[in-house]
């Protein structure tokens, strides 16, 4: 109980918001809007999983949005060439992993600071894509939408696969030695090295993993619409980092868990529809999200200071 206080408090905040909505605006609880909300957020959840591991390993990746956009466009082009979806998915995951490995090589191999490297790759990928596409959308074949299923079946597939992936990763984060190494490297890389762990390889793999998740997330996103916008994924990195931080994963690495991130993502995602149903100007969405992040970080800061004293 005490150990997971931070995660539970985020779930409590989410619960409080949902309860407030149930009382003040029961109109929020309609099946279809909730399903489309969850479907919309599923790709972000997948990317945030990767970002969570990166932050736990005491690095940061702000290039996920650009990786996501490249994977989306690549997958879209393959779809127009009539590739079967069963091949497009691994191709997209692979291209994401490739992009992630470039980050990983620069950061773990050359020991460059991750904020600078991923800032550079973020801009490079994004601008490269703009130059290549000239802002043009990729029109997807009809058979591609919702994986060629009906809309509701497609939505269900997206939600279930994202959530299943989350559950699997959350389990792995407790049960896989590799995940344990990520925590160890993030807590104290030198101590981890002395215990025979290779911090460089762990960091590299975290970036590759995140890239691969961007590729998967791109698929979950593009099947939802008839076109691929080369500008998609803009701001995705901030969304993912916000969810991670609100969820109680320490930005200084080594602490936190994926369930907190899950609750954080949902909490932030619910703000916008909640505002609509509570008849508050929707312009407040970003400001409120920012305030939530601030409160979360302040709570963490307070907690660490108390722990130190």
């Amino acid at each position, binding site marked *: 109980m005490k*150990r997971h206080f931070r995660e539970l408090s985020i779930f409590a905040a989410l619960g409080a918001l949902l309860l407030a909505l149930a009382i003040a605006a029961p109109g929020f609880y309609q099946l279809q809007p909730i399903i489309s909300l969850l479907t919309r957020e599923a790709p972000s959840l997948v990317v945030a999983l990767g970002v969570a591991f990166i932050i736990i390993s005491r690095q940061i990746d702000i290039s996920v949005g650009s990786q996501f956009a490249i994977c989306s466009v690549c997958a879209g082009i393959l779809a127009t060439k009539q590739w079967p979806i069963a091949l497009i998915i691994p191709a997209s995951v692979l291209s994401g992993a490739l992009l992630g490995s470039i980050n990983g090589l620069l950061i773990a191999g050359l020991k460059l600071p991750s904020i600078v490297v991923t800032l550079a790759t973020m801009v490079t990928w994004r601008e490269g894509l703009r130059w290549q596409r000239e802002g043009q959308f990729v029109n997807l074949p009809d058979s591609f939408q919702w994986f060629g299923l009906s809309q509701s079946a497609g939505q269900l597939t997206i939600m279930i696969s994202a959530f299943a992936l989350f559950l699997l990763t959350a389990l792995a984060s*407790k*049960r*896989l*030695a*590799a995940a*344990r*190494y990520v*925590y*160890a490297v993030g*807590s*104290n890389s*030198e*101590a*981890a*090295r*002395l*215990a*025979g*762990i*290779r911090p460089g390889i762990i960091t590299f793999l975290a970036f590759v993993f995140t890239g691969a998740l961007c590729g998967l997330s791109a698929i979950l996103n593009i099947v939802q619409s008839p076109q691929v916008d080369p500008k998609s994924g803009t701001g995705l990195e901030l969304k993912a980092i916000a969810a991670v931080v609100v969820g109680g994963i320490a930005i200084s690495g*080594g*602490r936190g868990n994926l369930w907190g991130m899950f609750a954080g993502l949902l909490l932030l995602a619910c703000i916008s529809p909640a505002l609509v149903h509570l008849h508050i100007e929707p312009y407040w969405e970003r400001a409120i999200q920012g305030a939530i992040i601030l409160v979360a970080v302040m709570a963490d800061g307070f907690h660490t200071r108390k722990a130190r004293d």
Partner: protein
Amino acid sequence: MASPLLQLTQVTKSFGAVRALSGVSFELLPGEVHALLGENGAGKSTLIKIITGAHQPDSGNIRIGGKEVRHLTPTAAHRHGIACIYQQPALFPDLSVAENIGLRLETTGALRPVAWNERRQRADHLLKRIGAAISSEAEVRSLSMPEQQLVEIACALGAGARIVIMDEPTASLTQKEQHLLFAVVRELRANGVGIIYISHRLEEIFALADRVTVLRDGQSVAVTKLDNINETALIKLMVGRDVTQIYPPADSLPKETVLALRKLGSASNGVHDVSLDVRAGEIVGLAGLVGAGRTELAEIIFGITHGDSGDIIINGKTISIRSPRDAIAHGIAYVPEDRRRHGVILEMSIAANTTMAIHPKIFPSTHLRPSAEKNLTNDYIKNLDIRTYGCDAPAASLSGGNQQKVALARWLATNPKLLILDEPTQGVDIGAKSEIHKIIRRLAKEGMAVLMISSDLPEILGMSDRIAVMREGTITAILPAHSNSHDVMSAALGQATSTKRSQKTSDDEGRAPTVDQYDREAVAEHGRGLGSSDTPENSNQKKSAP
């Protein structure tokens, strides 16, 4: 006699339960070089920190220039003309010498324009005064360590320091640079500055100092003119102390050689020509002063730094160790000195810490089985008597001694052939300390080869089956189990005379020391007098021991 610049009377300071200084008095006259001598942990740095205002004494008083000063803070100390020159100069590497000096000495407001010319001239003037050939335009980064120390001294002079503290100033200097520094020190002395000089090098102290204060276990055991004392007597003053701890008896017989080092060295960390054998079932104590290269040697063996000369031989095979991973694969375990930074990962649970180095072994499919992890950890919690509420508790929740046991558990889990312990009981309370000693002895008895680095002389004497002493990057003596503290300190300080005598004794009797013998030795050495008569008496006892 001139009135003292600085006078400390009956100063006492405790950190928690540890009494770092008890009733120490100290006096510094103008135009005097006063050496401060003592073993690691004798209280030298605490005393210095009190003089510089970094620590407040619990009791006792401080008089500077004859006036009593209460609540001495670093700023106040600075104002009173106290300057401290550390081994590692605290300068801004990216700024020029003149800027560094200016930052220390100028008190202009943040928004006033900088008088560059004036700043440069003052720097030049100060550097000239101490005879340093350093350009005031030079970037501090480009200066050598001794040049940086000279800049520090220039700062101290510029601030009108009357009391200059030098903490191991020659530790990183060459012979020539030392002479330059000594000339500066003599110049300062001639100008009436009082200098507190801390060094482990006795020849330096004899060459430079007028008086010496010897600290031992937080007490001042002697204040004397250096004319009245010789090296042997000084060492005796430093090391003599009660052996209050009872060490587990060494009753295992060493077996085959596990680790053999042949002329091992690494240019990058100053270790050279180290040859040493450690056998199964044996505890080899590695003694020496701070900076003698003991940790550096351990780091080479464990693959943290790379040896570039000589061989490491494990069980008869010459091996190459490129990383801690390699070392672990060869059955080497290393419990590092700084357990909070390197030994355990504080945020992680005891269980996670315990299994950290053995995942490939106990979880072949990289899949953690919580039950297996828990069982293993609980075994160690029981075995090593780790006091905790459960194996899920974070390592940060444990006391220092128990954290050390967790660090030990991690390495025992790898089932090593060779266990290297770096200061295994530093900062550990007395109870846990003797528990750790018992564990180490038990491991040796079970056939592990143990290399134990320690700065705690009684621990080295009480635990070791053999004692290797390091000085300036190499092993200068290998002493038998029942050597006395005097021999170890002599070897550590580079005074070789008494070493040979005890080496001979060791061939006669390969027997472990008894507690009784320590007590006698302690009594013999405890006297504050300088009577050299204890020495033969002491060694007589040893020879006649059954």
